[in-house]
């Protein structure tokens, strides 16, 4: 408030209180998504936390937007809920107007614009969108809180994102490796890698753990798998 400044304690007025409301919270969690030639897999942990405390060990962070598109969202959980509800409402409106479901690239672009609409009071959410595009190929789109969007083959996001991304770069992107032959990534390998990567995340990141849900998206639909992680 007026008169109080941390740098000038001599100007502090008695009885004046500094009230501060923090609109954001960090509820933790990590997401990893991998795209193949005809599939996409996306996994997210189920731990919701605040500071050093756990809110719950069983919160799914993957949102099925359609038969072809799944959104993983972590960060501020209140923003995540509102964003996913808004996205689902917009997708329903699209379906009513167009008489067909939204394609994954269309959802990707729309999410980007929706995030930018709140450029000056952002959704504090780390988003990764995974699905099948209009040509049947797997696709992964990753976002920053204000809607920068990039399509890639693999992406790790959330609290352990920085730890996991280099591991994916090496194992899927084959970066910094010699004498390796590029081959298309089969679904089983992608799933095994996904699980290993989350085990590593749970080792070092306190906000990631408990269990993960993995959604496997193919032309035939979406399958779900649950996998247990360290609870500490």
């Amino acid at each position, binding site marked *: 408030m007026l008169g109080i400044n941390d740098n000038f304690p001599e100007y502090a007025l008695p009885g004046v209180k500094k009230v501060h409301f923090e609109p954001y919270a960090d509820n933790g969690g990590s997401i990893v998504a991998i795209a193949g030639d005809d599939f996409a897999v996306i996994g997210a942990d189920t731990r919701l936390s605040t500071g050093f405390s756990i809110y719950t060990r069983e919160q799914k962070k993957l949102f099925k937007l359609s038969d072809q598109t799944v959104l993983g969202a972590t960060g501020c959980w209140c923003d995540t809920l509102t964003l996913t509800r808004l996205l689902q409402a917009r997708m329903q409106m699209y379906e009513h107007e167009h008489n067909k479901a939204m394609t994954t690239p269309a959802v990707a672009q729309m999410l980007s*614009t929706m995030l930018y609409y709140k450029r000056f009071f952002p959704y504090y959410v780390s988003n990764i969108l995974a699905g099948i595009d209009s040509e049947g190929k797997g696709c992964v789109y990753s976002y920053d809180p204000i809607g920068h969007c990039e399509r890639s083959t693999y992406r790790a996001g959330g609290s352990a994102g920085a730890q996991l991304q280099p591991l994916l770069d090496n194992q899927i992107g084959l970066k910094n490796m010699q004498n390796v032959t590029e081959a298309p990534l089969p679904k089983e390998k992608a799933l095994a890698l996904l699980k290993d990567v989350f085990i590593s995340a749970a080792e070092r990141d306190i906000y990631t753990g408990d269990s993960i849900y993995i959604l496997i998206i193919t032309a035939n639909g979406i399958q779900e798998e649950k996998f247990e992680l360290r609870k500490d």
Partner: protein
Amino acid sequence: MASERYSFSLTTFSPSGKLVQIEYALAAVAAGGTSVGIKASNGVVIATENKHKSILYDEHSVNKVEMITGHIGMVYSGMGPDYRLLVTQARKMAQQYFLMYHEPIPTAQLVQRLATVMQEYTQSGGVRPFGVSLLICGWDGDRPYLFQCDPSGAYFAWKATAMGKNFNNGKTFLEKRYTEDLELDDAVHTAILTLKEGFEGQMTADNIEVGICDAAGFRRLEPAHVKDYLANIP
């Protein structure tokens, strides 16, 4: 949309339940230059007469057949200035759609949005309805589309239609000539023939305009190209 003094609509019901302003707008359309649209199996053609009142007019400087996006084109019958406004708005709508969904706007979606604009002008304060009917042709989802938008805001999907002067004769002519398996080339030929039915004077590549839309997108035909088609007309 409402001018400063008018908060009430100038388009009001008559006792018989008609909106007379819209009827008059349709009369303005029927007095305008003939335009024709035909949907073929592999594309759509739109064409219009573009007669100039004097030899001093600079032909081909201003076009009636306009591109809205790479895959959608438009032509009109009625008042040119009203048309210009709708073309600008249609182009903006198409770009806004692309900005949102990163996909080319489906023709039906563009038509719905444009028709909504036209309807708003029949129910807003201080404005009059548009004095144009639009013919919109497009290609998306691997098939051709042809739509008409009226001053009332109503829109219709057509296989083939005519608007403007002599539109009744044109439609009768098309009813006889249209078949489901028409190819684009034949459709262009038929469209030019339909235009010729009510054409006063000699038809040349300089006083008609033709646009086609197929899987490769929309384009307005060059006068040289139109001349080739005219050469095949008796």
